[in-house]
Structure formats: C-alpha cells, structure tokens
C-alpha cells in the first residue's frame, strides 16, 4: 500500500436521505428489530433525568429539517461505557451513552431525553464541566460537525472548563452553553445550533 492508500478515507456528505441508513423509522419504514441510539439511559440508570431540545439554523435563518444529531456522553458518575475508560466496569446499568435524533421534517425541532452527565477528567487530570459531545450530519455538510453542549446551571464548573476558557470571546463561548428552561417536571435545556453567521456555534476539531 502507498501512503495515500493509508490516509483516512475522505468524508462525503450524508445527503438528504441519511435517515434510511441511520434511522429508518424516520424515513418511513422499520426493517430492524431495534434501532441504535434510541435510548441513552434505561429506566434503571441512576442520575438526574433531563430533556434537551433545540433546532439547527442555517445561514439564511432557516431551520435545518434533514439533519441527524448523535450524542456521546458519560454517565452520572462521569464514566464512559467503553473499554478505554479505566472505570468502565463501573458504568451505570442500562446506560449506552449514545443517542441519535433526527430533526423534525416540518419544524426542524430535535429533542432527546437522557441523564445529566457527571464531570470527566480531562487529559491533564483536572475535571471538566459536565458536557455532551454532539456530531451533526446532513445534506450540505461535507464533514460531520463536532461540538459540545455545556449546561447553563453549571456556572462554577463552566468557569474553569479548559475548552470554554480557551474561547476568548464571551459571545462565542456562550454558543456552547444550553439554557435551563422552565418546563414541567423534568429539567429541560434549550440548545440551538447556528451553522453560520450571527451567533455561529463553535465547532471543534476533535
């Protein structure tokens, strides 16, 4: 093999019909007994139940209605259910850490229910503010967009989080922080993602 043969396979857009492969029930049919990403935390998973919702907005101020968002998060104790997390054997029961949600075809609204993640140690051993990793794919997006969602009611932890601190402009930093919203019994957060222009969300090279 040549060096080019061993470079990473180049990305291509997921296109407008990505639901067929990633979430066929959203496309209108159900060939699989179970779709992945439908449940991040099971009924017996300990932790504080939360609901997160938002929209993805494009440069024309129009909601993106054909995107899929994937979520990867730690459990309430800050443990990832993956063998490379040294504490993975203690990960919460019924917790996959993985969610996949499609935007509504009419409104663009997306939402998922999960538990609030605990703090995870960063590469330097210091704790990071609780956060979720998001990955966005859609028609017009050539390489999946990575970002993080932090919680508006974690002001003290957010104030010392290395990533948030590395973003100098307060207005840009604020694009990664989901606002607490008053709604019902389950604590809810609002996280609107702006792809381009005024209030553009910070996207990450992970």
């Amino acid at each position: 093999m040549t060096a080019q043969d061993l470079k990473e396979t180049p990305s291509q857009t997921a296109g407008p019909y990505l639901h067929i492969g990633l979430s066929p029930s959203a496309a209108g049919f159900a060939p699989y007994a179970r779709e992945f990403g439908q449940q991040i935390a099971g009924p017996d998973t300990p932790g504080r139940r939360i609901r997160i919702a938002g929209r993805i907005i494009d440069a024309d101020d129009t909601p993106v209605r054909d995107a899929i968002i994937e979520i990867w998060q730690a459990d309430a104790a800050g443990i990832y259910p993956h063998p490379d997390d040294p504490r993975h054997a203690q990960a919460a029961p019924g917790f996959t850490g993985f969610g996949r949600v499609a935007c509504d075809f009419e409104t663009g609204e997306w939402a998922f229910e999960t538990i609030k993640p605990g703090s995870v140690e960063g590469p330097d051993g210091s704790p990071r503010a609780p956060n979720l990793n998001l990955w966005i794919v859609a028609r017009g997006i050539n390489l999946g967009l990575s970002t993080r969602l932090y919680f508006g009611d974690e002001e003290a932890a957010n104030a010392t989080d290395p990533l948030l601190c590395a973003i100098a402009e307060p207005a840009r930093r604020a694009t990664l922080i989901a606002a607490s919203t008053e709604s019902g019994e389950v604590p809810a957060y609002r996280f609107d993602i702006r792809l381009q222009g005024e209030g553009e969300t910070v996207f990450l090279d992970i």
Partner: protein
Amino acid sequence: MTAPFRPRDHAWHPPARAPSYRSSLARAPSHPLVAVPQGLSELTGPVFGADAIGPLDGDLLRNFAGADAPVGERILLHGRVLDEDARPVPHVLVEIWQANAGGRYRHKTDGYLAPLDPNFGGCGRCLTDAEGQFRFRTVRPGPYPFQNHEPAWRPAHVHFSVFGSGLAQRLITQMYFEGDPLIAKCPIVATIPDARAVERLIARLDMENAVDFEMLAYRFDIVLRGRTQTHFENRREGA
C-alpha cells in the same frame, strides 16, 4: 490509557464550504474549527453488541423482500475497516444506505419519478469481524438527478457510516463504482480537492469474490484515523 488519534488532515477532506455543491453554502461554518486536545470523550465512543444485529440486517437482498427478490444487479459488497497504520478495526458498526436499481430512495421526501421496488428497503448494517472485515449483499444502485447549479446527476453510490473505536474516528462517506463516467461530473465528488482522495472512494470490481451465477463482487476498504506514536499521559490541556 490508549494513545490519542492523529490529527485529521483537513486539506484531504472536502472543505465545509465547497462552491460546486450548492447546499454547502448556507451550511458551512465561517469560523475555523477550534482544536480540542483529545481526552476520554474523544478516545472512547459508542460500543454496539452483536446481539442487537439481526441475521438479515446486512443482506439487502432479503431484509425487506416479500415473496420476490429486489430487481437489479446483484452484488457482494465487502472490504475491511483499517486504521492509518493498517491495523484492523474490529467489532465496529458499519451502516449503509442506498437507492434502488432505478435511483429511487425509500424515503418519504424522495419524489423522483422512478418507482420504488416493493422488495427493496435500501439499508443494511453489520459489525466488522476480528480482522475488520464487513460484507453486505445488495443490488447496485442507479444514478439519479438532484438539484444543484445545473442538471446534476449523482453517480451510482452507497452511503457508508462507520464507528471506530473512539469518537474521533467517526466517519460518514460515499462509495462509488469503478468505471462510472458520472464520477468525474459530480459536484459532490468535486468537493474533494485531491484526485487521489477521490480514487479512495471508488470500489473495485472483484471477480475473485464473485459468486458464479449469483452475484458480482465489489471491494471497498475504509481507513480510519490512526494513533499517534507516543502514549497518552498527562498532556496539558491546550498543549
């Protein structure tokens, strides 16, 4: 702890804003990406168990079929998932989706006049084996038109979604077929700046694995980011 993944070469991937592909113009961030030192959240990623995959999930000839088989050119689509050091990536989820033989998708928003095939759904999934190998049975998808600057047709293609061993390896791409003259005319293919990178998305006809009087075979290998040589230890944030 495992070593971090190598940085992604953004000059090799398509840029976010690619003028040939009209849909990218309003959906491309204008700020540069902010680099994040990899920690546990990037080095780990979703794990999928074999118990959740049904026996027909990777067989698109049968996973939506009624009494009859789908119409079209029957193919075996197979390959390996490797990293940049040619190490197999075992036990990871590979998902595919595609149009039917006439270029029509089974999707509520596809209004193309070519008909649906009542025996074809168009999605499949499997886990790679211990050597990183995957295999699907399907029909070769047809090309189809889409809205762009000028009359634009997609070459025949299969969408691929791959999970690596960590979140930083997550990748979605498209696979094309050797010899298709539409590849050179496609505005989405043209988002990729380097012709050698385009070559990497073209599956090769693989007569050795064709099944006589049953199906042709195409081979498509996928490479995910490799690991750095130094082990991961107490790197400072931002370093």
